C-alpha cells in the first residue's frame, strides 16, 4: 500500500501500544474465584506464622516488679512517701526480693519501665539540642532555643545537657544480688552497663566536647547541670568512656520513647556465671530510689527479660497472626460457598450462551 504509506496524514497519531492504550496488561477480576485461593493461602500461611510466633514469644521469660511503692507494702513505699513532699530524699533505697526456682535462660536483660510518662509529648520531645550533644563547642555554650526553659541556669550559665529530656533523666539505680542457697551470702550479679545504647548513638551521634587539658570537667567548665541533676554531666560515671554525653544511661534516655508506657534497657547480664542466664536461687535487687513518678500517677517497674530473635516477650504478634489467619480461612469458606453458588449461576449463563 504505497498510498497509505506516503499519504499518511501529517496529523495521524502513532500506532503504538502505548499511545493506543493497548499495553499488555494483567486484568484480575476481583471475585470469589480469584479471592478464594488467596484467602486460603494467606490464612494458612498466617496461621503457621502465628503459631511459630506465639511459641517463640512464649519461650521468652519475663519477670517484672512494680517498685513505685504507692500500692504494695514493699519497702519502696517509704521512699515513695518520702518523694511525695517534693524534693526526693537523698539516697533512699529499697529492695526487691525474688527467687528463681530454675534457671532463667539467658541472655538476660534488665529493663526499667515507666508508665504514664509522656516522653512523646511535643514540647518535651523537642526540648533538646542535638548539636550540643554531638560535642560542638559552640552549641555547648549556646544551647538552642528549643531547650528553654532549661537552656540557661538561674545563674545564667548554659545548661549542659540542656532541655527537658536531659533534665528528666531517670536516676534510679539498681544492683542485683544473688544468693545461691538460702542463708548464703548475696553475690552481686555483674551488670553490663555498656552496650545498652545503639552503637551509632554511642559512637557517632553523642560526643563529648573536646577535652581541655585532658580533662572532661574542664571542657564542661562554665556550664551548669540541668536543675534536677545533683551532679554535673561529666560525673555521671567514673568510666571515662561512659561519662559526659556518652554516658550510656543518658544516651538511652535521650532516645525518646514512642509511647507513654515504655521500657528502657538498664543493663545486660552476660558475664561470668551468669552468661547462660540467672541460675536458680534467691535474688535481691537493691534500688536507689530517686525518681519521683507518683506525682503524675506514673509507675516504675523493673524487669528481667530474656530475648529471642524477635525481641522481647510480646504475644500479640502471634495472636494477631492467628486471628487474621483464621479470619482469612473463614472468609475463604464464605467465598467457597459463594463460589459454588455463583458457579452454578455462571454455568447457567454459559448454557444460555
Amino acid at each position, binding site marked *: *500500500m504505497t*498510498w497509505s504509506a*506516503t*499519504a499518511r*496524514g*501529517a*496529523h*495521524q*497519531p502513532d*500506532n503504538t501500544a502505548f*499511545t*493506543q492504550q493497548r*499495553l*499488555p*496488561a494483567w486484568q484480575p*477480576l476481583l*471475585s470469589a*474465584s*480469584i*479471592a478464594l485461593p*488467596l484467602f486460603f493461602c494467606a490464612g494458612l500461611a*498466617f496461621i503457621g506464622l502465628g503459631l511459630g510466633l506465639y511459641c517463640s514469644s512464649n519461650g521468652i521469660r519475663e519477670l517484672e516488679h512494680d517498685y513505685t511503692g504507692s500500692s504494695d507494702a514493699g519497702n519502696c513505699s517509704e521512699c515513695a512517701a518520702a518523694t511525695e513532699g*517534693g524534693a526526693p530524699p537523698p539516697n533512699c533505697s529499697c529492695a526487691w526480693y525474688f527467687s528463681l526456682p530454675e534457671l532463667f535462660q539467658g541472655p538476660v536483660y534488665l529493663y526499667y519501665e515507666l508508665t504514664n510518662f509522656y516522653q*512523646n*509529648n*511535643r*514540647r*518535651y*520531645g523537642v526540648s*533538646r539540642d*542535638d548539636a550540643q550533644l554531638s560535642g560542638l563547642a559552640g552549641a555547648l555554650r549556646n544551647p538552642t532555643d*528549643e531547650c528553654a*526553659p532549661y537552656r540557661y541556669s538561674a545563674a545564667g550559665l548554659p545548661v549542659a545537657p540542656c532541655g527537658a529530656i536531659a533534665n528528666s533523666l531517670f536516676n534510679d539505680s539498681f544492683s542485683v544480688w544473688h544468693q545461691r542457697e538460702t542463708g548464703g551470702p548475696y553475690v552481686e550479679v555483674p551488670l553490663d552497663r555498656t552496650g545498652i545504647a545503639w552503637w551509632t*548513638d554511642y559512637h557517632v*551521634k553523642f560526643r563529648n566536647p573536646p577535652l581541655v587539658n585532658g580533662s572532661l570537667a574542664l571542657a564542661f567548665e562554665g556550664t551548669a547541670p540541668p536543675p*534536677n541533676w545533683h551532679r554535673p554531666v561529666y560525673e555521671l560515671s567514673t568510666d571515662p568512656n561512659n561519662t559526659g554525653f556518652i554516658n550510656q544511661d543518658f544516651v*538511652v534516655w535521650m*532516645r*525518646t520513647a*514512642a*509511647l*507513654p508506657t515504655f*521500657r*528502657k534497657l538498664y543493663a545486660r547480664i552476660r558475664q561470668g556465671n551468669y552468661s547462660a542466664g540467672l541460675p536458680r536461687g534467691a535474688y535481691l535487687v537493691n534500688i536507689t530510689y530517686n525518681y*519521683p513518678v507518683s*506525682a*503524675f500517677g506514673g509507675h516504675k517497674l523493673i524487669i528481667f527479660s530474656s530475648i529471642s530473635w*524477635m*525481641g522481647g516477650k*510480646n504475644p500479640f*504478634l502471634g495472636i*494477631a*497472626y492467628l486471628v*487474621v489467619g483464621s*479470619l482469612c480461612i473463614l*472468609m475463604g469458606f464464605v*467465598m467457597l460457598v*459463594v463460589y459454588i453458588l*455463583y458457579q452454578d449461576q455462571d454455568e447457567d449463563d454459559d448454557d444460555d*450462551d
Partner: protein
Amino acid sequence: MEREPAAAEEPGPPGRRRRRRRRTRTVRSNLLPPPGAEDPAAGAAKGERRRRVCAQHLADNRLKTTKYTLLSFLPKNLFEQFHRLANVYFVFIALLNFVPAVNAFQPGLALAPVLFILAVTAFKDLWEDYSRHRSDHEINHLGCLVFSREENKYVNRFWKEIRVGDFVRLRCNEIIPADILLLSSSDPDGLCHIETANLDGETNLKRRQVVRGFSGLVSEFNPLTFTSVIECEKPNNDLTRFRGCIIHDNGKKAGLYKENLLLRGCTIRNTDAVVGIVIYAGHETKALLNNSGPRYKRSQLERQMNCDVLWCVLLLICMSLFSAVGHGLWVRQYQDKRSLFDVPESDGSALSPVTAAVYSFLTMIIVLQVLIPISLYVSIEIVKVCQVYFINQDMELYDEETDSQLQCRALNITEDLGQIQYIFSDKTGTLTENKMVFRRCTVSGIEYSHDANAQRLARYQEADSEEEEVVPRGGLVSQRGSIGSHQSIRMMHRTQSTKSHRRTGSRAEAKRASMLSRHTAFSSPMEKDITPDPKLLEKVSECDRCLAVARHQEHPLAHLSPELSDVFDFFIALTICNTVVVTSPDQPRQKVRVRFELKSPVKTIEDFLRRFTPSRLTSGCSSIGNLATNKSNHKSGSNFLSNLSSNSTLLRLEDKLGQSAPAIASNGYSSQAGNWAPEPTREQEPELKKEELELRYEAESPDEAALVYAAKAYNCALVDRLHDQVSVELPHLGRLTFELLHTLGFDSIRKRMSVVIRHPITDEINVYTKGADSVVMDLLLPCSSDDARGRHQKKIRSKTQNFLNMYAVEGLRTLCIAKRVLSEEEYACWLQSHLEAESSLDNREELLFQSAIRLETNLHLLGATGIEDRLQEGVPETIAKLRQAGLQIWVLTGDKQETAINIARACKLLDHEEEVITLNAESQEACAALLDQCLHYVQSRGLHSTPEKTEGKMSVGFSPLCPTPASTASNPSPSLVIDGRSLAYALEKNLEDKFLFLAKQCQSVLCCRSTPLQKSMVVKLVRSKLKAMTLAIGDGANDVSMIQVADVGVGILGQEGMQAVMASDFAVPRFRYLERLLIVHGHWCYSRLANMVLYFFYKNTMFVGLLFWFQFYCGFSASAMIDQWYLIFFNLLFSSLPQLVTGVLDKDVPAHVLLTKPQLYRSGQNMEEYRPQTFWLNMVDAAFQSLVCFFIPYLAYYNSDVDLFTWGTLITAIALFTFLLHLGIETRTWTWLNWITCGFSIILFFTVALIYNASCAACYPPSNPYWTVQTLLRDPVFYLTCLIAPVTALLPRLFFKALQGSLFPTPLQLGRQSARKCPKRLNIPKETFAQGRLEGDLRTDHSVGRTISPSASLSRDRVSQDCTSQAAWHTQQAACSPEASEEPSMVDNSVPLRDDTVLEGLSAQSPGSSTWGAAVPEGCPEESKVKSTSAGRVAPLSSLFNLPNFSSINWISSLSLVSGLGNGQAGRGVPVQAPSGRAGLKGTDHGLLLVAPSRGRS
C-alpha cells in the same frame, strides 16, 4: 513613530464631546495639519498635546498579549496563583510554621512543597507568556506600507507603528494589519476580495468595496488630498456590523458599512493593491476584541471534589479542635503535679491549659495539613493532560479524509465526557455532511426526478464501503508533498476532474480528491457533477434555441410558452440569485475577469433619473437593434484581445472562452453596448488546456454552490460575477450579462434572498427571489380564479406545493424560486425608499428589512428545488449507540419540521413505531394549553395505558385521533417535535417547567426552526433546571451560543468554518466520532479520575488518621511519630507515581466491550464511581485502615523500648505498603508501568530513608533520625508487622469487593467478565443477550431491543393510516372553510383564521404515518381529498412574519418577540456570541476571531 500631526479626536465643544464620545469615534488623516493651528509654534505644541491625547484614547497597532513584564512577573504571577484558595491555604500553613510556639516542622522544610508547586506553575506560566511574547514580537514586526508625508510615498513600517489615521497600502496576499477603511482599490470596480480563513476558517472569498465617492477616482488615490472626516462607532466586537459616515470637505456625507471595512487578520486576495485609512488599530480591532481568551470550565467531578475538599477541611478542623481540647485537659491534669515531662514556659511559669490548647490547635492544623492534599490539584492536572494526550492520539478518532484528529481544546473537563446525559445536536453539517447535492426540482408544476443523478449518488454510497479496495494511482501520491505549489494543484485538479467525469470515482476517491483540493469551499466532485434530467435538459436547450432565434425581436420571451419561459427564468434565477464568486481552478483566488463597461449600480436618485429617462430607454432598445455593429465590435475586441500580451490567467481564460465558444459574441446583448476594457499590462500565455476552463464556485453556503453547479449541468453556467454585473453563459444564446442592480442578502428572519437585475434580453427589471417555501409561497401574487391563466397558476402552485411536501418527506431541503417583473415606475418608487434606507444611519437594518419586504411581494412562482444533505457516515449507528447508552438526544435545527423529522427518521432518532407529539402553537395561551394536554396524555399513558383514557383525552381536541395500539403495546416513550415559534412560548418562564417535564418524558426531542438563541436557551434550561450534564454539538456559527452554554461543547471540523470549533471544548472531524469519544474515552476518563480522586481522599485520610490516633498517646500535644520529611514528601514523592499511572492508564472495561455495550456508559451518568456515599464509605474505610495500621504496630511494640521515630518509620512503611496494596485492589489493569511505579515507590522510599537517616547525625531536630531505618531493617518485627498490618487493613475491602464481584456484580464488572470470556470478539447473539441482561440489571425503562409482534405493528400501521395526524397542521381549519377550499393560496385566509386554530397546533403523530400530504382534516372528512394539498402545509403561520399586507406591523411584532428572547438583539434575532478560543496567525495564540453573520438555512 511618525512625527506628523496626529489624528484629531472628538472635535467640538466639551459638553457635546462628552455626549458623543460614547457612541462615535472621529478619525482624520494623520497627514493633515491639526485643525486650528494658527501659528507654527502653537500648532506644534498643540499637535504634540493632541498626539498624547490621541495616544491615550486610540490604541496603536502594537499587539501585546503577554500578561507579564520582566519586573512584574513575580508579584503578578504570585498574585494570580494566590487566587487559588488552595495555594493561599498551603502558604498560610507554611508560614504558620515560622511561629515558634506552634511550629511543627522545620520552617524551611514546610515551605518546600508549596514553593515547589508555586514554582512549577510559575514556570509554566512564564513559558507560556514567553511564547506569547515571541509571537507578539513577530507579528508586531511584520512590515507594511504606510504613507509618509515627509517622503511623500509609501514607506515600509512595522505593524506596531501603524496608528489610527494612517494610510496603508496593501498588496495581494498581504495580511491586513488593522481594521482599515477601504479607500482605493486597483480593481476597476473598486472591489477587493478578502479571505477570512485566518479569522474563521472560511475559505471562500468575501467582497469588500471602496467607500462610495472614492470608487470613481480614475487616478491613483493620493492620501495627501484626503481631507474628509470619518465618523464611526467606537471599537466593538461585532464583526458583522460597521456603521459610520464619511464627511467630505464640502459637507457631503456618505455612509460607511461593513462592506467598506477590511478586518485585521484577513488576507487580501484577487486584488493587486488597495489603500485604506486605519480606523481601529491594535487591541481595538474587531478581531482582537473578539478574542476573549480560553475559558476555564470546571468539570462536575471537580465541583463535587471541591465540595469534598471542604468536608476534609471541616474534618481537619474537627480533629484539631478535638485535639486542642484534649491537650488543654491533659495540660490541666498534669499542670500542678510537677511531672517531669511537663515543660514550663520559657520563663519558667507553667503553661496555662487554654494557651496550650490554642497552640496545640494551630500545630495540629500544620501537622494534619496532609488531609488537604497539596498534590491533589497538581496530580489531577497531570492526569488530565495525559488523558487529553491519549484522546488526541487515538487512531480511531483520526479522520483520514480530512487528516484531522480529535482536538481537545479544553484540558480540564475530560471526565465530563463520561457523564453526559443530554446531547443537543445541530442537524446540518453535524448529522449531515453539509455537502449539498442537487437532487430534484420542479419547474412550473412539473417534477423532474433526476433519476440518473440519484443513481450516481447511490454509486458514491456503494463505493464508499469498498473504500479500502480502491488503490489510487500513484500520480496522486507524489503530489501530496508539494501541495502548496502551483503546479501540483493544477495537476491535481485535472486528475480529479477527469476522474470524476468518467464516473469511476468512488466516494473514497472523492474524499481524497476533496482532501487535496480543500482550498475550495464546498465542492467535492459529488456536489459538482450533476447528471441532468434528460427531459428538463431538453426543455432548457429548447428555450435556449428559441431565445437565440427570437432575441432580435421585440418581445423575445413572448415566443416561449409560459412553461418554457418559466424554465428559462428558473435557471437564470438559480444561476444569479446567489452570492457565489467565480474563480478559475488553475490559479485559485483569481477572479475570472471578463469585463464589460457597465455603469455601477444606481446610487442616487438623480443617477437613476438620469439613467432611466425615456431617451435612455430607447437608446437601450436601439442598442439591441444594432446587433451587427455590436457583433463586429466584439470581433475587433477579441482580436485586440488576442494581440494583447497578458500574463494573467484571467485573460488567458477569457481568451480561451473566446476560442472554445464562438457563440460568445452575445455580449452585445447586454443592456449597453459592450466594449472590452482589458487591463493593458498583461501578457499572453499561448498554451492552454481545455480543462482549465472549468470554473470554480466559491459560495458562502453549500446549497448556493449546489444550485449553481446544478444550473451549470444544464449548460447555464455562471461565468462571472462582479459587483454590478453577472454573466451567464448558455450554449446558443452565448453570454448574457445581467446588470445587477441590487442584492438583498439572505437573512434568517426573511428566510430568502433576492437579486434585482436588468434582464439583458427584455431589458426589464426583474426580481429573482429564492427562499424557504413557507415564506415564498405566501408572497406569491394572488391569482384570481376567473381567467384560465390564473387557474393554471393556481394549479401549478398546488402541484408545486405537493412536490415540496414530497421533497420534505424525502428529507430534502427545499427552496422556492420566484420572480417578479418590476415596471420602471415601481422600481423608481421602491428605489427611492431603498436608498433612503441605505443612507439612514440610525436604524438602517430595520429600514432595509422593510424595504426588502416591500420588494419581495407579488411574486411569480417559477419552481422549487430539492437539495439533499446527505447523512454523515455512521450517524444512525452512532445515535442508536448513544441512545442505548442512556443519552437523550435533542436535535435543534433551523430546518423546517418535515425535513427535520425525516432526517431524524433517517438517522434512527425517531422510530417508526414511536409516537410523535407535535407542538405547534401560535400563542402563549395555546402553547400552555397544549403543554397541559400533552402532559396529561403522556402521564395517563405512562400510568395506565388504557385506550379509553386516552380516548377521553383526545376528545378535548387533542390530536392523536386514534389512541393506537402503540400505547398498549410495549409503550415506548413518545418523541416530541416542537417548532421555533412554540418553542419561544414554551421557553417563557411560566411554561418552561411544563415543557421540560414533557420533554423529559420523551425519548427524543426535535426543535425545528429554532434560532441560535433558542438553541442556547434550551440547553441552558435543561442544564439549570434538570441539573443534567449537557453536551452540545454543532458545526456552524449558529451553534456557537449553544456550544458555549453547554457543559461540554463539541465542534465539528466541518465545512462551515471554524467558529463552532473555536467555541468548543472538543472538536471532532465527524459526528460518528462522538460515540467513541463519549462511550470509550468519556467513560475511561470519568472512571479513572473518579477513582483517583477517591483514592487521594482515602490516602490522605488514612495517613492523617495515623497521626490522629497517636494524639491519644501523646497527650494530644500535636506530636507526630512520623518524621517531618516523610510527612511532607510522602504525598509528593513516595506515593504519587503509582496513582498517577493508574489514573492515566487504568481501563475498567476494554474499549470493545464499552462499544458493544453502550449501557455501561450509565455508570458515569449516574455518577456511580464517585458519589457522596462512596466518598464517605471511602473515608470510613480509610479510618478503619488507619486504625489497623496504627494499632498493630502499637500493640506489637507495646511495652518495648522502641523509640518514637523508629516506630514512626515503621508506621510510615506500613502505610506505604497499605496504599500500594489498596491501589492494587483498585487497579483494574496492570501494565508493566504499574508494576514499575509501585516498585519504584517502595525503592524510592527506602532509598531516601536510608540516605536521609545516614546523612547527618545531629541534624533535623527534633526527629534526629540517624540510623533509625538501618536499625529498623534489622528488626524482624518490622517485617512481621509490615506483613500483617496491610493485609489486615485491606482484608475487609478485599472481602467485600470479592463478595460483591461475585454476588452483585455491577454492569461494569459483567462487562469486564465478558471481555475476559471471549476477548476481542463478541459475537452478535451474545451481545444481544448481554444487553438484555444488562437492561434487567439496570432496571432501565429504555427499551432497546423491543420486540413487537408483526401482527401488532401491522394493525397499528393500518390504524395510523386511517387516522393520520392531520390535526398537526393548523391550516386544516382554513382548508375546511369554504373559501379556503376555493383558495388554496395561504396568503389571504390563514391570517383571519389564526385564532380559531389555536388548539390544533398539537398533534401526536401516529407512528408510521409518513404520508403528510394525505392528511385528513378533522372537521371535514368529506372534503379531505380536495384539501389534502393545503393540509400538508407546514407551519404556515411563519408566513405571518412576512405577509405583505401588514408587513411592517407584523415584522415589528415578530421582532419584539425575538428581542424579548434575546437581549435586545432586535433586527437580527440571531445572537452573535463572541466565540472564544484561539485561531492564530501562524498558529500563535493571537486569537483573531470572526463571527460570521449567523446563517440559518432554509
